């Protein structure tokens, strides 16, 4: 693929993307189990967004990860690193076997993603509220240099607690960065509590709209709808695009869904087998 050519809008094959998402969830669960690492539910929650982005929307070539014209995808919710690593490996940025080194001493796959080490990781994230300002800078550099790439930033709902998110939201609107798209993984939970009981997010879509964004709500597990909305950025509104994706934390595994214990818990070997069965993988 040549990323110098703008990727055309194409028919979404939702069935194929769904199968990918099931595989991805299986990988994430395996990694969480092997590393006994936290943030499994947060990773499952955004799996469909990642699949829509990496298998349909993004203008990228894993063989040339530093191509200046590539679309940028910033995992601003860096705690979902397992999901990003699995996606990048499945897309061919590095060997799939390297996923076995997740959280291992001396490896490249830290629990939150470092940049400059792994191809395909655009920025070191994990501290929340950093991805969107970085993305705005990248988008402006594209504008200044006459490069037409797009910037996607995936934010958690808890991340919307951070003031820097709203600084960047106002900045992007003022600069009319219509090639920037935020997807909020709105699973209604943050690390230790319901998000609305922590800092009131609702009405979240209205907030983004009030900050000058072309904001709309979307089913964050409808891969076809996600791919369709994301591939149309910039969408002609002249505004940056916010997709408030309603999701379920722990999506795909019945005994993890909407149970916030899985923000930190890692599955046992038995639970891994059960989860795989539910995902139709075994």
């Amino acid at each position: 693929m040549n990323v110098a050519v703008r990727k055309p809008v194409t028919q979404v094959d939702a069935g194929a993307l769904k199968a990918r998402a099931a595989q991805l969830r299986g990988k994430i669960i395996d990694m969480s189990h092997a590393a006994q690492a936290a943030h499994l539910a947060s990773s499952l929650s955004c799996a469909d967004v990642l699949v829509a982005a990496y298998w349909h929307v993004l203008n990228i070539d894993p063989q040339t990860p530093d191509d200046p014209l590539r679309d940028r995808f910033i995992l601003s919710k860096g705690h979902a690193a397992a999901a990003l690593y699995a996606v990048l490996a499945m897309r061919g940025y590095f060997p799939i076997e390297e996923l076995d080194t997740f959280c291992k001493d001396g490896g490249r796959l830290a629990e939150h993603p470092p940049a400059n080490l792994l191809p395909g990781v655009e920025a070191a994230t994990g501290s929340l509220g950093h991805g969107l300002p970085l993305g705005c800078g990248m988008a402006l550099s594209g504008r200044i240099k006459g490069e037409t790439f797009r910037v996607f930033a995936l934010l958690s709902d808890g991340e919307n607690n951070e003031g820097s998110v709203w600084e960047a939201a106002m900045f992007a609107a003022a600069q009319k960065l219509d090639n920037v798209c935020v997807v909020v993984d709105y699973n209604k939970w943050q690390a230790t509590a319901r998000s609305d009981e922590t800092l009131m997010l609702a009405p979240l879509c209205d907030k983004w709209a009030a900050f000058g964004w072309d904001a709309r709500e979307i089913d964050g597990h409808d891969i076809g709808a996600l791919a369709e909305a994301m591939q149309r950025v910039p969408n002609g509104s002249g505004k940056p695009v916010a997709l408030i994706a309603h999701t379920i934390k722990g999506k795909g595994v019945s005994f993890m869904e909407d149970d916030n214990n899985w923000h930190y818990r890692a599955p046992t070997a038995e639970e891994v087998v059960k989860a795989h069965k539910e995902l139709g993988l075994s």
Partner: protein
Amino acid sequence: MRNAFADELTRLGDKDPRIVMLSGDIGNRLFDKFKARHPSRFFNCGVAEANMMGVAAGMAMNGLRPVAYTITPFVTTRCLEQIRTDVCYHEAPVTIVAVGAGLSYSGLGPTHHSCEDISFLRSIPNMVVICPGDAFEVRAALRAAMQQDHPVYIRMGKKGEPVVHAGSIENFQIGKAITVSDGTDVCLLSTGNMLPEAIEAARKLGGQGISAQVVSFHTVKPLDQACLKDAFGRFKLVATIEEHSLIGGFGAAVSEWLADTRTGNQNFMRFGTPDAFFKQSGEQEYAREALGLTGHQIAEKIIHALH
């Protein structure tokens, strides 16, 4: 220093299309020339420094040379995590330019004082810390920063400080201190906007028959080790002078160097601000006097130490 910065940046911007100016809603009219010549490369980022620093990092990660500018505490401590993670971790060539170092804006009150920023920024890997001593050093430092592929912090005073150098400094090097005047007894290592006070101290010392060398030690990180080796090997007394806390600043960096290199020296003095907020109203001259940081006070303390 401030006007020299804006002027030099405009000149550099004419030649280098990578240079982008980000302002934190400060410098009314200061950047009019830059804006007029490079409208697509000037951004008023508003009173939102965390975002400004992240934007600067994102630009630098994509091949530009952004300069992020506002008043010292706001462009350093306010957005310290963005400097650490977005700029320094990614080794993004952002140049952070601060106006109002130390007590330059003493009269504006405690929120505008900045006596901790050197300490914070020099502890971050990949960061270079430059404190120019006059307007010519500001220009030279900015030119040098634009040639770097790494983050640089330039800590300026305000506007209208005395000019020390005779003209443009063509052989300026980051990490290479500049000897302003030669001496044989005492070596005054000054960083940043304290250079005129150091020169005044040397003059007073000269009046007492003590020959003082004055060095503009503009780069606090990396330290000019050759200069330090020479100073501690040759002079009866070496003093560091800065408008910054004695904790973590230039004098502290030299103390670390002394410890790490096992350079024994009894005759080392540090001049800087104490471990306390300056709570009075008053302009910079008043604040310096109150804290014992004027040239004549420095000279008196050195004379006392030598006797």
